[in-house]
């Protein structure tokens, strides 16, 4: 997949082209069921950015996508395909839940929150490192094992939340609420403290942590020795061995970092909003992270933009469902599916065409050696 296109086309134009294709197909389908696609698009944009609190919701979902997208991207730099974002995020949530439920009577909220951040990352890291170990030492492919680990994580959650951790005297599979104050501050609360009135939304400090994580990933991959070795291993295992590194070790470390990032997604959902451990809080964000990473070309900046798009779709899509009788929740899922299809599975579909066009318009200055 070596592209002969300049970077600005590869990173800038191609993703836009893919999104455009997805919107055109979605538009045709919406037209087919008798609605005006442009009105629908308008509703969606307003739902994502304009309505009261809409932007907060959009950025709240964006936060989830940044974490899971980064997780996929880090693994991808070592040519590992981490499909286990769901399971790793669940485990991150479980870590937070166990920590807080065990200690919220003893420790102050502030300290618990500070502890919850590394705990979520460590639990996710462990859940990523095991498939990494199995690939490195046993040759079991991470694609298979991470999928299996999603199921295992899901089963553990059901077992615990319908059993030991379930709130006594309740029927719902969830824990008791965390103690008062154990939760990340929301933006509208911060704004209120500063005397600014902002619409309520679930957007919380996790968003800042996600942006910091994106910066951290950029530093790791392009500014540290470890990142250098991860990339070398990803491009050429032989070269890594020649340089005196153990690809096995790098695979395990990379999967741990990847899992840790996915695990931190739980900060947003559990510590940011729910303030208790619930089932299925990951609701597919782990999987969508793959599309986010692909669309963001595995670069943190690209991932932030791709996350924003998916966040807007998630939130704006809900609005579509709300405003149109004919457009159901399933319809919205389908539009999201089309975006994933065009920017994920078919991400290189337009490349040959654009490449030909580009070379016809701009004569290349030097031949490729």
């Amino acid at each position, binding site marked *: 997949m070596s592209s002969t296109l300049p970077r600005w086309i590869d990173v800038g134009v191609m993703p836009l082209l893919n999104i455009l294709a997805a919107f055109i197909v979605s538009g045709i389908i919406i037209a087919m069921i008798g609605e005006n696609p442009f009105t629908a698009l308008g509703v969606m944009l307003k739902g994502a950015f304009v309505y009261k609190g809409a932007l907060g919701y959009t950025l709240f979902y964006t936060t989830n996508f940044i974490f899971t997208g980064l997780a996929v991207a880090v693994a991808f730099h070592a040519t590992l395909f981490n499909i286990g974002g769901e399971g790793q995020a669940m485990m991150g949530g479980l870590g937070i839940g166990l920590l807080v439920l065990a200690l919220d009577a003893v420790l102050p909220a502030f300290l618990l929150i500070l502890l919850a951040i590394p705990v979520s990352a460590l639990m996710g890291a462990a859940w990523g490192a095991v498939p990494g170990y199995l690939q490195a030492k046993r040759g079991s492919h991470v694609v298979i094992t991470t999928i299996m680990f999603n199921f295992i994580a899901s089963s553990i959650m059901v077992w615990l939340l319908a059993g030991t951790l379930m709130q006594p005297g309740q029927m719902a599979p969830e824990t008791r609420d965390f103690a008062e104050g154990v939760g990340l501050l929301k933006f509208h609360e911060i704004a209120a403290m500063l005397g600014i009135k902002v619409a309520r939304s679930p957007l919380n400090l996790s968003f800042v942590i996600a942006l910091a994580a994106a910066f951290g990933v950029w530093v790791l991959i392009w*500014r540290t*020795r470890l990142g250098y070795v991860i990339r*070398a291993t990803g*491009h050429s295992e*032989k*070269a890594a061995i*020649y340089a005196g*590194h153990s690809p096995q070790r790098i695979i395990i470390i990379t999967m741990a970092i990847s899992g840790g990032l996915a695990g931190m997604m739980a900060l947003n959902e559990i510590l940011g909003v729910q303030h208790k451990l619930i089932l299925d809080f990951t609701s597919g964000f782990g999987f969508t992270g793959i599309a986010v990473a692909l669309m963001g070309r595995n670069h943190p900046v690209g991932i932030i933009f791709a996350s924003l798009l998916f966040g807007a779709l998630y939130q704006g899509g809900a609005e579509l469902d709300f405003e149109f009788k004919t457009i159901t929740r399933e319809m919205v899922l389908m539009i999201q599916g089309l975006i994933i299809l065009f920017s994920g599975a078919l991400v290189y579909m337009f490349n040959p065409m654009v490449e030909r066009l580009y070379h016809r318009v701009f004569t290349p200055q030097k031949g490729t*050696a």
Partner: protein
Amino acid sequence: MTKTTQHNARGGTPPPAIALSGISKTFGAVRANDDIALTVTPGHIHGIVGENGAGKSTLVSILYGFYQADSGDIAINGQKVQIKSTADAIKLGIGMVHQHFMLVPTFTVLENIILGHEHRKGGKSLDDEIALARQELSNLAQQYGLEVDFDALVADLSVGLQQRVEILKTLYRGANILILDEPTGVLTPQETDQLFEILATLRQQGVTVLLITHKLREIMAITDDVSVMRGGKMVAHLTTAKTSPEELAELMVGRQVLINADFHDAEKGEVCLVADNITLTGDGGIPLLRGISFDLRAGEILGVAGVSGNGQTELLEVLSGITPPTSGEINIGGQVIGAHQPATPNDVKNLGLAHVPEDRHAMGMVLPFSAAESAVLGYERQAALGDSIWFGPDLLQNHCAELMQDYDIRPADPALKCNLFSGGNQQKLVLAREMSAAPKILLVGQPTRGVDIGAIEFIYQRLIAMRDQGCAILLVSVELDEILTLSDRVMVMNNGASMGIVDKKDADAQSIGLMMAGVV
């Protein structure tokens, strides 16, 4: 099964089984095949020898329809043909056994053979078809001496038997021209002998065999005719009985324009590295190195000559710590490395050893990396490049810019990706990286492969300068002239063993060629 070729030649000689003329094929800037002509007599075993990269595989790929030639003609049994796909080739009676087998390991032998031809016999069901095929196959197996258990799973068969299945598969599809691409690379010596018996039987039955190899012993042992390829060109057509391994070795390696290297004798220093009886056994028990011993002194260049694929690659990997030896010891300045005292490439590097690998694309550099990034590959732990964690791009760029100036690497742009440099400049970058580490011992593999003349001269001068500064250099090259030009002593390898070490004054192309061929 027997087809037209053998008994119908009442008057005159039969047309050649294969006649190629003017075949050319270009990949990007590489001329893989350049105006190739080839005539193969029916019922003969015809060998094609040449170094790796000489264009042998491209040629047979054209014949088997994987690639299409840019120009040139192909005639099969006297008929001019167009081979646009492998299906065309099979229709023309051409069969090919690949270097890597194309078998389904979880299928039985019989299932593998009829795969893709399940309806040939017109049986009503697959069971019918299998029964019909079994009958025909047992006849074929008997006729050609290719006995194999049809109901065994392919995964359970030895490599030699799997190859037999491949041959049987081509015959079942009606092949009377059989192409074998490096068939013995994966075989033990015993299996090789069995293969040769099978080939002799095939010849007896009138099958034409085209044998692609770089091993001279095999050519001498089994072929009737031999063609030699070098650098994409056909350089000679010979009758095997009238040639010798020495002549073939010389033709394969070729005579180069003598390059001014300004070689002079120099004082040798202390012994820096001792290799004591190193052996290495590959997958499936194939011996790759057989008891290699030598010592390497400061201030000398020890050349390792040999036709490629005779253990030189493995020797470099063992010495540089990439692969631990199966037995034997390496002593580097008092530090012993062996099967029970393994060392990583990093440990070996810390003992003052640097390694310019043979394969600069996969190993020596990371092609999608910038020049600056590849310029520190293997040295990324060094303190000069930043503190223990950080890895400053400015430091990398400055470091690379210095190397580029010292070694005249063009274009002198540290941010340019490695795959955009020419072969010569890529090689200079790898050499610059390894030499600038001021090693006590330098391993160099194929320093001038794919490198232009100007860069070759530069590289030779640098190697000699390193030696004069007291560096011990082990130079592995398939270019015999390069070895003879640069080496103080020459070790010759054949089939994983050292054929002896010769001093510069006693080393000439004739005697080294004999040793390369495994004669002496």
